[in-house]
């Protein structure tokens, strides 16, 4: 065989693998077509064809905007921001110890406490804050407190999960060096681990606050206070000009909170 007698053809997959791949794509397309048929079986097409006219109608009722409604909205808006902020503080305060129990490298008992901590995190994450609010309004009555607690409970899972992952990713050599000095368990946490997770901690908290501003705007829909209450009232009375003002106000608040959170995170990291 000469030195130049190498194959000229190279293919990533064998013919058999290619056939399997194409069959896979075919099945996916078939599944999509079938799902579409199931999905549209109960659609009343008269309403769908009517949609552009209905949208234009609501749009025209939103105009002109009812700017006189703004002063009345400022207090509920302030409530909403307070629900988000206090809820975030409460959630972070509860998530902090739970994260240390859940992280593999800091948990005091991998057999009992770690599964409990992980369960709390999963439970908190699996329930939407609107559903938390629904439950809490029934338990502690309508108002701001229900909203704050709902936001806090929902935040535990998010903050706890990201924080315990940050704890597990810390540099073990720095921790080992602190251990080697004869430091106690709490001292190892406060000198070896906490300095390493501080940027993650602040980043996660500010990010969650930003999310909570958005979530707390709808909590009023189920009676948990804030601007959502006003939104619900305006929709019920078909005052589309007021609804439009509320939506614009929420949009403005979210944009401002995103800006603040981006600034803060950049300053910390």
């Amino acid at each position: 065989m000469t030195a130049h007698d190498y194959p000229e053809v190279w293919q990533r997959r064998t013919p058999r693998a290619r056939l399997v791949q194409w069959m896979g794509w075919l099945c996916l397309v078939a599944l999509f077509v079938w799902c579409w048929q199931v999905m549209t079986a109960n659609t009343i097409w008269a309403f769908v064809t009517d949609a552009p006219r209905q949208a234009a109608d609501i749009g025209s009722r939103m105009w002109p905007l009812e700017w006189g409604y703004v002063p009345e909205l400022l207090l509920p808006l302030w409530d909403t921001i307070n629900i988000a902020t206090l809820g975030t503080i409460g959630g972070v305060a509860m998530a902090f110890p739970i994260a240390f129990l859940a992280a593999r490298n800091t948990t005091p008992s991998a057999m009992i406490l770690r599964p409990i901590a992980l369960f709390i995190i999963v439970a908190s994450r699996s329930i939407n804050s609107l559903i938390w609010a629904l439950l809490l309004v029934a338990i502690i009555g309508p108002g701001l407190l229900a909203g704050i607690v709902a936001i806090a409970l929902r935040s535990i899972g998010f903050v706890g999960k990201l924080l315990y992952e940050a704890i597990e990713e810390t540099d073990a050599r720095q921790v080992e060096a602190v251990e080697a000095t004869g430091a106690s368990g709490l001292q190892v946490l406060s000198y070896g681990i906490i300095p390493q997770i501080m940027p993650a901690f602040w980043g996660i908290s500010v990010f969650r606050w930003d999310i909570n501003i958005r979530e707390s705007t709808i909590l009023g829909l189920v009676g948990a206070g804030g601007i959502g209450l006003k939104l619900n009232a305006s929709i019920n009375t078909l005052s589309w000009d007021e609804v439009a003002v509320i939506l614009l106000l929420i949009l403005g608040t979210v944009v401002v909170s995103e800006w603040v959170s981006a600034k803060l995170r950049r300053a910390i990291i």
Partner: protein
Amino acid sequence: MLHLDGLSKTYATGEAALSDVTLTVPQGQIMGLIGPSGAGKSTLIRCINRLVEPSSGKVILGDVDLARLGKAELRRQRRRIGMIFQEYALVERLTVMENVLSGRLGYVPFWRSLLRKYPARDIQTAYRLLDRVGLMNRADSRADALSGGQRQRVGIARALAQEPELLLVDEPTASLDPKTSRQIMRLITEICAERGLPVIVNIHDVPLAQQFMQRIVGLRAGRIVFDGAPADLTEAALTEIYGAEDWNAMRQGDSEQAEAEADAARRLEALAK
């Protein structure tokens, strides 16, 4: 004085990292531990302060057997052993001063360490050590703002802040350039000589070990295969430790490097004029 008696370590994977190591380090001795990668050098020094749990054997420091201590007593005994790490292992986001003071953690209650309210004597010790390693003006810098050589000097100050009776040094120069390596080795050996502190230095650079150590122990596959003065480290002894290799070429390479360094220094001086 440190005495190891029949120290063995077998990892959970079944790999025997140390087999029956018996060794005595007298007061004030500067001992180098050499050997190929995987010979068990790191395991040996980590078994002494039990960052790695030994499988069997005794680790006797003074009159305490460290290998059989419970958790709380081990913490108290660890204060007697300072450790300097490869790649420094400083807490990067804390200041130089906090890193040096962390050497006192075993002596102060939790609330004092949390609030950074250390006793006046500890603070004085920390400043004195920073002055000794030449970093007095960097006390409030964050550790990650320092160069490699400076970080390792903070590591030295942290270990000495413990006022240890034994110093363990794990590859102190592995990530430093040749010139800084020599400075760091000189600093460690000088300080240990000043204090009569026994020290075990884990080192893979044979010429550096011969230059600075009083005694050299060679480890191969977890067993001691050489124990003697640096001058006794002949070609035959090196072959015993590392396996066959052209040792004269390596030594020649080292002298060439030293010449090149000296040459570079002369050129820099000439440029400065």
